[in-house]
Protein backbone atom coordinates (compact mmCIF):
# COMPACT_ATOMS: atom_id res chain seq x y z
CA UNK A 1 0.00 0.00 0.00
CA UNK A 2 2.71 2.43 1.05
CA UNK A 3 4.62 1.54 -2.10
CA UNK A 4 1.57 2.25 -4.25
CA UNK A 5 0.98 5.57 -2.50
CA UNK A 6 4.57 6.60 -3.08
CA UNK A 7 4.15 5.68 -6.73
CA UNK A 8 0.99 7.80 -6.95
CA UNK A 9 2.82 10.82 -5.62
CA UNK A 10 6.23 10.46 -7.30
CA UNK A 11 5.20 9.18 -10.72
CA UNK A 12 3.49 12.37 -11.95
CA UNK A 13 6.40 14.49 -10.78
CA UNK A 14 9.17 12.52 -12.51
CA UNK A 15 8.51 9.51 -14.76
CA UNK A 16 4.99 10.54 -15.74
CA UNK A 17 5.39 14.29 -15.65
CA UNK A 18 2.38 15.86 -17.37
CA UNK A 19 4.41 18.38 -19.37
CA UNK A 20 7.66 16.63 -20.23
CA UNK A 21 6.43 13.04 -20.61
CA UNK A 22 2.71 13.24 -21.36
CA UNK A 23 3.16 16.57 -23.21
CA UNK A 24 -0.06 17.96 -21.72
CA UNK A 25 -0.69 21.56 -20.69
CA UNK A 26 2.13 22.89 -22.85
CA UNK A 27 0.07 25.83 -24.12
CA UNK A 28 -0.43 27.48 -20.74
CA UNK A 29 3.15 26.77 -19.71
CA UNK A 30 4.31 28.93 -22.62
CA UNK A 31 2.06 31.77 -21.57
CA UNK A 32 2.57 32.15 -17.82
CA UNK A 33 6.30 31.53 -17.48
CA UNK A 34 7.62 35.02 -18.24
CA UNK A 35 7.90 35.79 -14.54
CA UNK A 36 8.45 33.52 -11.54
CA UNK A 37 5.73 35.06 -9.40
CA UNK A 38 3.03 34.43 -11.96
CA UNK A 39 4.31 30.91 -12.57
CA UNK A 40 4.16 30.10 -8.85
CA UNK A 41 0.58 31.32 -8.45
CA UNK A 42 -0.43 29.49 -11.62
CA UNK A 43 1.21 26.32 -10.30
CA UNK A 44 -0.61 26.66 -6.98
CA UNK A 45 -3.93 27.29 -8.75
CA UNK A 46 -3.50 24.22 -10.94
CA UNK A 47 -2.55 22.09 -7.91
CA UNK A 48 -5.74 23.15 -6.11
CA UNK A 49 -7.94 22.68 -9.17
CA UNK A 50 -6.59 19.25 -10.14
CA UNK A 51 -6.55 18.03 -6.54
CA UNK A 52 -10.03 19.11 -5.52
CA UNK A 53 -11.72 18.27 -8.85
CA UNK A 54 -10.20 14.78 -8.76
CA UNK A 55 -11.42 14.41 -5.18
CA UNK A 56 -14.97 15.52 -5.97
CA UNK A 57 -15.22 13.41 -9.12
CA UNK A 58 -13.91 10.40 -7.24
CA UNK A 59 -16.57 10.89 -4.55
CA UNK A 60 -19.22 10.97 -7.26
CA UNK A 61 -17.66 8.22 -9.40
CA UNK A 62 -20.23 5.52 -8.63
CA UNK A 63 -23.20 7.80 -9.29
CA UNK A 64 -21.99 9.55 -12.45
CA UNK A 65 -23.97 8.36 -15.49
CA UNK A 66 -21.40 6.96 -17.89
CA UNK A 67 -22.78 8.67 -20.98
CA UNK A 68 -22.71 12.12 -19.41
CA UNK A 69 -19.48 11.78 -17.45
CA UNK A 70 -17.39 14.26 -19.45
CA UNK A 71 -20.04 16.95 -18.96
CA UNK A 72 -20.19 16.29 -15.23
CA UNK A 73 -16.38 16.41 -14.95
CA UNK A 74 -16.33 19.63 -16.91
CA UNK A 75 -18.92 21.21 -14.62
CA UNK A 76 -16.91 20.27 -11.54
CA UNK A 77 -13.64 21.56 -13.02
CA UNK A 78 -15.30 24.78 -14.20
CA UNK A 79 -16.68 25.36 -10.74
CA UNK A 80 -13.24 24.94 -9.17
CA UNK A 81 -11.59 27.25 -11.71
CA UNK A 82 -14.17 30.00 -11.19
CA UNK A 83 -13.86 29.65 -7.41
CA UNK A 84 -10.06 30.00 -7.58
CA UNK A 85 -10.39 33.03 -9.83
CA UNK A 86 -12.95 34.67 -7.52
CA UNK A 87 -10.86 34.03 -4.42
CA UNK A 88 -7.73 35.43 -6.09
CA UNK A 89 -9.67 38.52 -7.17
CA UNK A 90 -10.75 39.08 -3.59
CA UNK A 91 -7.53 38.26 -1.75
CA UNK A 92 -4.63 38.50 -4.21
CA UNK A 93 -5.87 41.14 -6.61
CA UNK A 94 -2.54 42.17 -8.12
CA UNK A 95 -1.56 38.58 -8.93
CA UNK A 96 -4.96 37.84 -10.42
CA UNK A 97 -4.54 40.86 -12.66
CA UNK A 98 -1.16 39.60 -13.77
CA UNK A 99 -2.43 36.11 -14.64
CA UNK A 100 -5.60 37.55 -16.18
CA UNK A 101 -7.13 35.09 -18.62
CA UNK A 102 -4.86 32.16 -17.84
CA UNK A 103 -6.61 31.27 -14.60
CA UNK A 104 -9.84 30.88 -16.54
CA UNK A 105 -7.99 28.78 -19.08
CA UNK A 106 -7.02 26.15 -16.49
CA UNK A 107 -10.33 24.60 -17.46
CA UNK A 108 -8.90 23.79 -20.89
CA UNK A 109 -5.75 22.33 -19.36
CA UNK A 110 -5.76 18.69 -20.44
CA UNK A 111 -4.05 17.59 -17.22
CA UNK A 112 -7.15 18.24 -15.12
CA UNK A 113 -9.60 16.32 -17.30
CA UNK A 114 -6.97 13.73 -18.12
CA UNK A 115 -6.36 12.79 -14.50
CA UNK A 116 -10.08 12.67 -13.69
CA UNK A 117 -10.74 10.34 -16.63
CA UNK A 118 -7.67 8.19 -16.09
CA UNK A 119 -7.48 8.02 -12.32
CA UNK A 120 -10.23 9.62 -10.24
CA UNK A 121 -13.09 7.67 -11.83
CA UNK A 122 -11.48 4.37 -10.91
CA UNK A 123 -9.99 5.10 -7.49
CA UNK A 124 -11.01 6.10 -3.99
CA UNK A 125 -11.21 9.83 -3.07
CA UNK A 126 -7.96 10.10 -1.06
CA UNK A 127 -5.62 8.54 -3.62
CA UNK A 128 -7.43 10.63 -6.26
CA UNK A 129 -6.77 13.81 -4.31
CA UNK A 130 -3.09 12.85 -4.01
CA UNK A 131 -2.88 11.99 -7.70
CA UNK A 132 -4.43 15.33 -8.63
CA UNK A 133 -2.13 17.28 -6.35
CA UNK A 134 0.94 15.35 -7.50
CA UNK A 135 0.13 16.03 -11.15
CA UNK A 136 -0.35 19.69 -10.30
CA UNK A 137 3.06 19.67 -8.62
CA UNK A 138 4.64 17.97 -11.64
CA UNK A 139 3.16 20.65 -13.88
CA UNK A 140 4.13 23.44 -11.48
CA UNK A 141 7.70 22.18 -11.18
CA UNK A 142 8.30 22.54 -14.93
CA UNK A 143 6.55 25.92 -14.89
CA UNK A 144 8.87 27.20 -12.18
CA UNK A 145 12.01 25.84 -13.88
CA UNK A 146 11.07 27.46 -17.20
CA UNK A 147 10.04 30.72 -15.53
CA UNK A 148 13.34 30.80 -13.61
CA UNK A 149 15.39 30.83 -16.81
CA UNK A 150 13.03 33.09 -18.72
CA UNK A 151 12.87 35.76 -16.02
CA UNK A 152 16.59 35.53 -15.25
CA UNK A 153 17.76 35.77 -18.86
CA UNK A 154 14.86 37.78 -20.24
CA UNK A 155 14.50 40.48 -17.63
CA UNK A 156 17.62 39.97 -15.50
CA UNK A 157 15.48 39.59 -12.38
CA UNK A 158 14.13 36.86 -10.08
CA UNK A 159 10.76 37.43 -8.39
CA UNK A 160 11.14 41.02 -9.59
CA UNK A 161 14.46 41.56 -7.79
CA UNK A 162 17.34 42.59 -10.03
CA UNK A 163 19.94 39.81 -10.23
CA UNK A 164 21.74 39.94 -13.55
CA UNK A 165 20.72 43.48 -14.51
CA UNK A 166 23.00 44.94 -11.84
CA UNK A 167 25.94 43.06 -13.39
CA UNK A 168 25.53 44.85 -16.70
CA UNK A 169 23.67 41.99 -18.37
CA UNK A 170 21.73 43.01 -21.48
CA UNK A 171 18.28 41.41 -21.43
CA UNK A 172 17.57 38.82 -24.08
CA UNK A 173 14.23 39.80 -25.62
CA UNK A 174 13.77 36.36 -27.19
CA UNK A 175 13.45 34.84 -23.71
CA UNK A 176 10.27 36.82 -23.12
CA UNK A 177 8.54 35.50 -26.23
CA UNK A 178 6.62 32.18 -26.10
CA UNK A 179 8.84 30.33 -28.63
CA UNK A 180 11.72 30.39 -26.16
CA UNK A 181 9.54 28.70 -23.55
CA UNK A 182 8.90 25.90 -26.03
CA UNK A 183 12.63 25.56 -26.68
CA UNK A 184 13.31 25.50 -22.93
CA UNK A 185 10.69 22.80 -22.39
CA UNK A 186 12.32 20.89 -25.24
CA UNK A 187 15.66 21.15 -23.43
CA UNK A 188 14.11 19.89 -20.19
CA UNK A 189 12.62 16.92 -22.06
CA UNK A 190 16.03 16.23 -23.62
CA UNK A 191 17.81 16.35 -20.28
CA UNK A 192 15.20 14.17 -18.59
CA UNK A 193 15.31 11.53 -21.35
CA UNK A 194 19.09 11.46 -21.37
CA UNK A 195 19.12 10.74 -17.64
CA UNK A 196 16.21 8.29 -17.63
CA UNK A 197 16.82 5.98 -20.59
CA UNK A 198 13.51 4.12 -20.01
CA UNK A 199 11.62 7.18 -21.27
CA UNK A 200 13.24 7.03 -24.69
CA UNK A 201 11.06 5.64 -27.44
CA UNK A 202 12.61 2.84 -29.44
Amino acid at each position, binding site marked *: MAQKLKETILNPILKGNPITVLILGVCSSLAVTVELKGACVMALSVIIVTGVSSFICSLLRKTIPNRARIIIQLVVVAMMVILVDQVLKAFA*YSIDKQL*SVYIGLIITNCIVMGRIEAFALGNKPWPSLLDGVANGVGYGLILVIVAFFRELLGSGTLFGFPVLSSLGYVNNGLMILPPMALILIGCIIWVQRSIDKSLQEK
Partner: protein
Amino acid sequence: MNTNSNVYTVIYTTLICVIVAAVLAFASQSLKPRQDANEKAETIRQILTAAQFEFDASSNEAILGFYKSNIAEAFLVDADGQKTGTLDTKTAQIYGVSDLKAQNYNIKGEADYNLPVYIFKNGTTVLPVYGAGLWGPVWGYIALDSSCTQIAGAYFDHESETPGLGGKIKDDPEFRAQFAGKTVNTADEVPFHIVKGGAPAGQTNAIDAISGATMTSKGLDEAINIWLKAYANYAAAANNTTEEE
Protein backbone atom coordinates in the same frame (compact mmCIF):
# COMPACT_ATOMS: atom_id res chain seq x y z
CA MET B 1 -29.81 1.38 -9.67
CA ASN B 2 -29.41 1.82 -13.40
CA THR B 3 -27.14 4.83 -13.79
CA ASN B 4 -27.38 4.60 -17.57
CA SER B 5 -31.08 5.27 -17.99
CA ASN B 6 -32.11 8.47 -19.70
CA VAL B 7 -34.20 9.71 -16.79
CA TYR B 8 -31.35 9.22 -14.33
CA THR B 9 -28.84 10.96 -16.62
CA VAL B 10 -31.07 14.00 -17.13
CA ILE B 11 -31.99 14.35 -13.46
CA TYR B 12 -28.39 13.83 -12.34
CA THR B 13 -26.87 16.42 -14.69
CA THR B 14 -29.61 18.93 -13.88
CA LEU B 15 -29.06 18.45 -10.18
CA ILE B 16 -25.27 18.84 -10.47
CA CYS B 17 -25.67 22.02 -12.50
CA VAL B 18 -28.09 23.52 -9.98
CA ILE B 19 -25.79 22.70 -7.06
CA VAL B 20 -22.72 24.11 -8.82
CA ALA B 21 -24.64 27.23 -9.84
CA ALA B 22 -25.71 27.76 -6.24
CA VAL B 23 -22.13 27.37 -4.95
CA LEU B 24 -20.81 29.84 -7.51
CA ALA B 25 -23.59 32.35 -6.92
CA PHE B 26 -22.89 32.22 -3.20
CA ALA B 27 -19.13 32.64 -3.70
CA SER B 28 -19.62 35.49 -6.12
CA GLN B 29 -22.03 37.33 -3.84
CA SER B 30 -19.98 36.93 -0.69
CA LEU B 31 -16.68 37.94 -2.34
CA LYS B 32 -18.11 40.82 -4.40
CA PRO B 33 -17.67 43.63 -1.83
CA ARG B 34 -14.02 42.67 -1.35
CA GLN B 35 -13.38 42.48 -5.10
CA ASP B 36 -15.01 45.86 -5.72
CA ALA B 37 -13.00 47.41 -2.90
CA ASN B 38 -9.79 45.98 -4.40
CA GLU B 39 -10.65 47.34 -7.82
CA LYS B 40 -11.43 50.80 -6.46
CA ALA B 41 -8.26 50.93 -4.37
CA GLU B 42 -6.23 49.85 -7.40
CA THR B 43 -7.73 52.67 -9.50
CA ILE B 44 -6.99 55.22 -6.78
CA ARG B 45 -3.46 53.83 -6.43
CA GLN B 46 -2.94 54.39 -10.14
CA ILE B 47 -4.30 57.96 -9.95
CA LEU B 48 -2.02 58.75 -7.00
CA THR B 49 0.99 57.16 -8.68
CA ALA B 50 0.35 59.24 -11.80
CA ALA B 51 0.20 62.37 -9.64
CA GLN B 52 3.70 61.50 -8.32
CA PHE B 53 2.64 61.09 -4.70
CA GLU B 54 4.77 59.03 -2.32
CA PHE B 55 2.35 56.99 -0.27
CA ASP B 56 1.80 53.79 1.63
CA ALA B 57 0.14 51.35 -0.76
CA SER B 58 0.25 48.36 1.57
CA SER B 59 -3.49 48.23 2.23
CA ASN B 60 -6.70 49.43 0.62
CA GLU B 61 -7.49 51.55 3.68
CA ALA B 62 -4.12 53.31 3.53
CA ILE B 63 -4.59 54.15 -0.16
CA LEU B 64 -8.13 55.46 0.35
CA GLY B 65 -7.09 57.45 3.42
CA PHE B 66 -4.24 59.11 1.56
CA TYR B 67 -6.50 59.96 -1.35
CA LYS B 68 -9.19 61.47 0.87
CA SER B 69 -6.74 63.68 2.72
CA ASN B 70 -5.07 64.99 -0.46
CA ILE B 71 -7.89 65.41 -2.95
CA ALA B 72 -9.24 68.96 -3.31
CA GLU B 73 -12.11 68.33 -5.68
CA ALA B 74 -13.31 65.76 -8.18
CA PHE B 75 -15.95 66.52 -10.75
CA LEU B 76 -17.27 65.73 -14.22
CA VAL B 77 -16.93 67.96 -17.27
CA ASP B 78 -18.68 67.82 -20.64
CA ALA B 79 -17.40 68.62 -24.14
CA ASP B 80 -17.71 72.38 -23.52
CA GLY B 81 -15.59 72.11 -20.41
CA GLN B 82 -18.61 72.84 -18.21
CA LYS B 83 -18.98 71.13 -14.85
CA THR B 84 -21.88 68.70 -15.02
CA GLY B 85 -21.57 66.93 -11.71
CA THR B 86 -19.32 66.25 -8.75
CA LEU B 87 -17.73 63.11 -7.39
CA ASP B 88 -17.97 62.77 -3.63
CA THR B 89 -14.44 63.14 -2.26
CA LYS B 90 -15.47 62.11 1.27
CA THR B 91 -16.31 58.59 0.11
CA ALA B 92 -13.51 58.67 -2.50
CA GLN B 93 -16.00 58.30 -5.33
CA ILE B 94 -14.16 57.74 -8.61
CA TYR B 95 -14.73 56.72 -12.19
CA GLY B 96 -13.65 53.10 -12.52
CA VAL B 97 -12.37 51.41 -15.66
CA SER B 98 -15.86 50.36 -16.75
CA ASP B 99 -17.04 53.99 -16.45
CA LEU B 100 -14.11 55.11 -18.60
CA LYS B 101 -15.04 52.48 -21.16
CA ALA B 102 -18.61 53.81 -21.32
CA GLN B 103 -17.36 57.39 -21.77
CA ASN B 104 -14.93 56.23 -24.44
CA TYR B 105 -17.90 55.00 -26.48
CA ASN B 106 -19.55 58.40 -26.02
CA ILE B 107 -16.45 60.29 -27.14
CA LYS B 108 -15.94 58.12 -30.21
CA GLY B 109 -19.66 58.04 -31.05
CA GLU B 110 -19.75 61.83 -30.76
CA ALA B 111 -22.44 61.54 -28.11
CA ASP B 112 -22.56 63.71 -24.98
CA TYR B 113 -19.92 62.71 -22.49
CA ASN B 114 -19.03 63.46 -18.90
CA LEU B 115 -15.38 62.98 -18.06
CA PRO B 116 -13.89 62.96 -14.58
CA VAL B 117 -11.30 65.49 -13.41
CA TYR B 118 -9.39 64.96 -10.17
CA ILE B 119 -7.75 68.02 -8.65
CA PHE B 120 -5.42 67.55 -5.71
CA LYS B 121 -4.61 70.08 -2.99
CA ASN B 122 -1.16 70.69 -4.46
CA GLY B 123 -2.76 71.82 -7.73
CA THR B 124 -2.08 68.63 -9.69
CA THR B 125 -4.92 67.76 -12.07
CA VAL B 126 -5.32 64.14 -13.07
CA LEU B 127 -7.17 63.21 -16.25
CA PRO B 128 -7.88 59.62 -17.32
CA VAL B 129 -7.35 58.20 -20.81
CA TYR B 130 -8.79 55.03 -22.32
CA GLY B 131 -8.34 53.23 -25.62
CA ALA B 132 -7.50 50.00 -27.41
CA GLY B 133 -4.10 48.30 -27.20
CA LEU B 134 -3.13 45.21 -29.16
CA TRP B 135 -5.07 42.49 -27.31
CA GLY B 136 -7.44 44.48 -25.14
CA PRO B 137 -8.14 47.87 -23.63
CA VAL B 138 -5.40 50.13 -22.29
CA TRP B 139 -6.08 53.00 -19.94
CA GLY B 140 -4.25 55.31 -17.64
CA TYR B 141 -4.00 58.61 -15.84
CA ILE B 142 -2.08 61.71 -16.82
CA ALA B 143 -1.18 64.22 -14.13
CA LEU B 144 -0.95 67.84 -15.26
CA ASP B 145 -0.21 71.10 -13.46
CA SER B 146 -3.18 73.37 -12.66
CA SER B 147 -2.97 75.09 -16.06
CA CYS B 148 -3.22 71.70 -17.82
CA THR B 149 -0.13 72.34 -19.98
CA GLN B 150 2.72 70.68 -18.12
CA ILE B 151 2.76 66.93 -17.48
CA ALA B 152 3.80 65.94 -13.97
CA GLY B 153 3.57 62.21 -14.46
CA ALA B 154 1.52 59.34 -15.81
CA TYR B 155 0.49 55.80 -15.05
CA PHE B 156 -0.93 53.22 -17.42
CA ASP B 157 -2.57 49.86 -17.15
CA HIS B 158 -3.85 47.28 -19.59
CA GLU B 159 -6.00 44.20 -19.65
CA SER B 160 -3.99 41.73 -21.69
CA GLU B 161 -0.96 43.25 -23.43
CA THR B 162 2.03 40.93 -23.86
CA PRO B 163 4.14 40.84 -20.69
CA GLY B 164 7.60 42.21 -21.34
CA LEU B 165 6.53 43.94 -24.57
CA GLY B 166 3.25 45.90 -24.59
CA GLY B 167 2.99 45.22 -20.88
CA LYS B 168 5.84 47.66 -20.39
CA ILE B 169 3.40 50.58 -20.50
CA LYS B 170 2.58 49.44 -16.99
CA ASP B 171 5.66 47.57 -15.81
CA ASP B 172 8.50 49.73 -17.09
CA PRO B 173 9.08 52.73 -14.81
CA GLU B 174 11.41 54.21 -17.44
CA PHE B 175 8.59 54.42 -19.95
CA ARG B 176 6.35 56.24 -17.48
CA ALA B 177 9.17 58.52 -16.33
CA GLN B 178 9.44 59.95 -19.84
CA PHE B 179 6.15 61.79 -19.36
CA ALA B 180 7.30 63.95 -16.47
CA GLY B 181 8.21 67.47 -17.59
CA LYS B 182 6.67 67.16 -21.06
CA THR B 183 4.25 69.81 -22.24
CA VAL B 184 0.92 69.39 -23.90
CA ASN B 185 -1.36 71.82 -25.69
CA THR B 186 -4.84 70.40 -26.07
CA ALA B 187 -5.60 73.02 -28.73
CA ASP B 188 -3.13 71.30 -31.09
CA GLU B 189 -4.58 68.86 -33.55
CA VAL B 190 -2.38 66.15 -32.07
CA PRO B 191 -1.52 67.19 -28.51
CA PHE B 192 0.93 64.40 -27.74
CA HIS B 193 3.17 62.03 -29.68
CA ILE B 194 4.51 58.58 -28.85
CA VAL B 195 7.16 58.20 -31.52
CA LYS B 196 8.40 54.88 -32.88
CA GLY B 197 12.18 54.92 -33.19
CA GLY B 198 12.59 57.69 -30.63
CA ALA B 199 11.22 61.17 -30.08
CA PRO B 200 13.13 63.97 -31.86
CA ALA B 201 15.42 65.81 -29.46
CA GLY B 202 13.94 69.06 -28.25
CA GLN B 203 10.32 68.19 -29.00
CA THR B 204 8.61 68.74 -25.67
CA ASN B 205 5.34 66.94 -26.42
CA ALA B 206 6.76 63.62 -27.57
CA ILE B 207 8.22 60.48 -25.99
CA ASP B 208 9.83 57.27 -27.27
CA ALA B 209 7.55 54.38 -28.13
CA ILE B 210 8.28 50.87 -26.78
CA SER B 211 10.34 48.76 -29.16
CA GLY B 212 8.65 45.48 -29.95
CA ALA B 213 5.25 46.88 -29.00
CA THR B 214 4.22 48.97 -31.97
CA MET B 215 0.50 48.32 -31.71
CA THR B 216 0.34 48.96 -27.97
CA SER B 217 2.31 52.20 -28.38
CA LYS B 218 0.01 53.27 -31.21
CA GLY B 219 -3.08 52.42 -29.19
CA LEU B 220 -1.83 54.35 -26.21
CA ASP B 221 -0.92 57.31 -28.41
CA GLU B 222 -4.45 57.29 -29.80
CA ALA B 223 -6.03 56.93 -26.36
CA ILE B 224 -4.05 59.87 -25.01
CA ASN B 225 -4.82 62.14 -27.96
CA ILE B 226 -8.53 61.31 -28.23
CA TRP B 227 -9.06 61.86 -24.53
CA LEU B 228 -6.93 64.98 -24.23
CA LYS B 229 -8.83 66.46 -27.17
CA ALA B 230 -12.08 65.61 -25.39
CA TYR B 231 -10.85 67.67 -22.44
CA ALA B 232 -9.68 70.52 -24.71
CA ASN B 233 -12.31 73.07 -23.66
CA TYR B 234 -11.87 72.30 -19.99
CA ALA B 235 -8.08 72.57 -20.32
CA ALA B 236 -8.36 75.88 -22.19
CA ALA B 237 -10.55 77.30 -19.42
CA ALA B 238 -8.17 76.02 -16.74
CA ASN B 239 -5.27 77.62 -18.60
CA ASN B 240 -7.06 81.01 -18.80
CA THR B 241 -7.88 81.01 -15.12
CA THR B 242 -4.27 80.39 -14.12
CA GLU B 243 -3.03 83.10 -16.48
CA GLU B 244 -5.48 85.66 -15.04
CA GLU B 245 -4.23 84.89 -11.60
